[in-house]
């Protein structure tokens, strides 16, 4: 019976493809895998690529998500070392790092990741309670140390979780951890509000008094400055006048030639200027030139 070579080639190709699919598997960059031989893990794969294996039922491939998982724990209350109730919640970035160790514990569950997170939750809780109890509240909130204590707390919790992971050896790895919430019990929040209210009151009062006192100071300062300015000016004016007097005195030498005449002229000037405005003069008949009145009238009457 004559066979067509093309049909043969196609058939061969199909068999090859089918065989390839049976004997190979891929691990993506987001995954790690464990190969089991008759149920026993014999190979772990952490690099993405194409791999070969014996077909089922000899070997079986189990893949797990290797990406960093975000896990946030519940808000739980702990006591600080100085007996403040403090509610904390942290987030944890963790991943499956060793599939061989991870596989026997979690491969059976429907969702290995969430099963692992249930465990992680306990560890995080333990570590948190431990660490929070060792620190006073001022380590969580304070301006003093530039945040070193806060970071130390986060680090201590992370270390606590890591040591529990090491003891259990379940193929997990915690990459990072941070505090996500930091809160006070409800009753405490009310007393914080009360304290804040009184602090605000003090602050408002202080602003008011400070303002008034400062304003007062500015005003009195200004008064003082003004008085100083005027006093300076007055003394300067007196000095200037004094200089004027001194300069004027130089001319006195001229009057020295005939003091009698000088004094007469000065008196005349003084008389004139003193009677310049709004003055009333009362004369009797003895005052010259009004003595004229007497002489004239009497003479005329006698004649």
């Amino acid at each position, binding site marked *: 019976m004559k066979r067509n070579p093309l049909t043969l080639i196609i058939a061969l190709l199909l068999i090859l493809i089918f065989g390839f699919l049976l004997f190979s598997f891929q691990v993506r960059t987001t995954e790690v895998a464990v190969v089991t031989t008759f149920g026993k893990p014999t190979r772990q794969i952490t690099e993405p690529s194409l791999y070969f294996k014996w077909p089922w039922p000899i070997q079986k491939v189990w893949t797990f998500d290797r990406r960093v998982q975000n896990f946030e724990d519940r*808000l739980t209350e702990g006591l600080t070392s100085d007996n403040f109730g403090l*509610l904390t919640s942290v987030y944890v970035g963790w991943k499956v790092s060793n599939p061989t160790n991870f596989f026997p514990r979690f491969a059976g569950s429907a969702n290995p990741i969430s099963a692992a997170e249930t465990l992680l939750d306990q560890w995080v809780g333990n570590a948190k309670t431990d660490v929070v109890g060792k620190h006073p509240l001022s380590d969580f909130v304070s301006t003093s140390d530039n945040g070193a204590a806060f970071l130390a707390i986060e680090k201590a919790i992370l270390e606590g979780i890591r040591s529990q992971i090491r003891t259990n050896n379940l193929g997990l790895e915690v990459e990072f951890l941070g505090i996500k919430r930091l809160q006070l019990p409800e009753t405490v929040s009310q007393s914080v509000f009360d304290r804040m209210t009184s602090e605000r009151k003090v602050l408002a009062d202080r602003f008011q008094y400070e303002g008034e006192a400062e304003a007062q100071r500015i005003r009195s300062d200004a008064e003082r400055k003004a008085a100083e300015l005027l006093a300076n000016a007055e003394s*300067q004016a007196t000095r200037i006048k004094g200089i004027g007097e001194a300069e004027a005195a130089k001319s006195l030498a*001229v009057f020295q030639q005939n003091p009698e005449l000088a004094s007469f002229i000065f008196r005349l000037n003084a008389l004139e200027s003193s009677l310049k405005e709004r003055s009333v003069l009362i004369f009797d008949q003895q005052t010259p030139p009004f003595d004229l009145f007497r002489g004239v009238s009497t003479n005329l009457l006698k004649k």
Partner: protein
Amino acid sequence: MNDHLHSPDDLPAPALPPEMPMDASSQALAEALRSSFAIVKVLMVLLALLFLASGFFTVGPQERAILLRFGRPVGEGEKALLMPGLHWSLPYPIDESIKVSISGLQQVRSTVGWYPVTPEQELSGIEPPAGGPLNPIVDGYALTADANIIHTRAILTYRIKDPIRYVFSFVNASNAVQNALDNALLYAASRFKVDDILTRDIAGFRSAVRRHATQSAEMQDLGIVVETCTVDSVPPRQLKDAFANVLKAEVMRSKVLNEARSSENQVTNKASADAESLINLARSDRARRVSDVGAQAERFQEILPQYKDHPALFAQQRLTETLGRVLTNVQDKIFVADSADGKPKEMRLLLNREVPKPVTEEKKP
């Protein structure tokens, strides 16, 4: 269909009839077999074409794609991203294209430190009514360095620098970024005093949040670059009035201070103006005095020779002249004649003539 069957590439079909001279039924069977073979062949060609064509895929305008070859990403850094358009990859299981919506800037917002608001309230800008104490489960807030309670929230925008790391190393990288932002907000708040966060050092607080978020992102190797960070902080609604009063007092203080400063300016300006005029007055006084005396001296020099010629006459003439001038100038002149009997006369003077003016008018004549 039949036409197609007899096309030249039908090889096995023509071979059948000559070998077996058959009856009608087997002939029909052969016919049927032949046609089904043909159908299978066409299907196979179609399948092969389809298989190759399955390598085509489009990337939407808001999307990027990353190609995995045998599970490994092709390309590195931002070059690994396939831009929107039509692309072709080797068919599965060799290549696999993963579509991601990570174009442009990403944004996360942290609300762990904010009170619960519904989206409607958020949009309309209404804040929910203040209740009593804060329930730690429901009400988000942050603790400040001076153990005050404050509400604060932040929005961080970032660019993805390393898409392969961002997409393939995290189940939910944007969630990780948000956690980092939450943490940065709490951390920064716990290092700042309430007044610094709210009023005095808003920029410092914002940059502290940004710095810590950036540090966390780098430490966790999220493959992102932080672009902007905005922070918004308010005092608890329950204490709104108390905080407002402090602000009011602060405003009042600066108002009082400004008033004081302006009055300070006024007072000192006036004083310096007064001082200036005082000095100027003194200067002009001095000038006048000097020139007065100088003029008098000059005049004295002139009249001295005349006086020396006829001292008595000169004096007499001067006196009379002056008296004449004086008397012209004097406003009221009262002449009291001697009484006939030679007895002294009594006169009453009303001094301070300014006030009862009419009286003086009467007296004048």
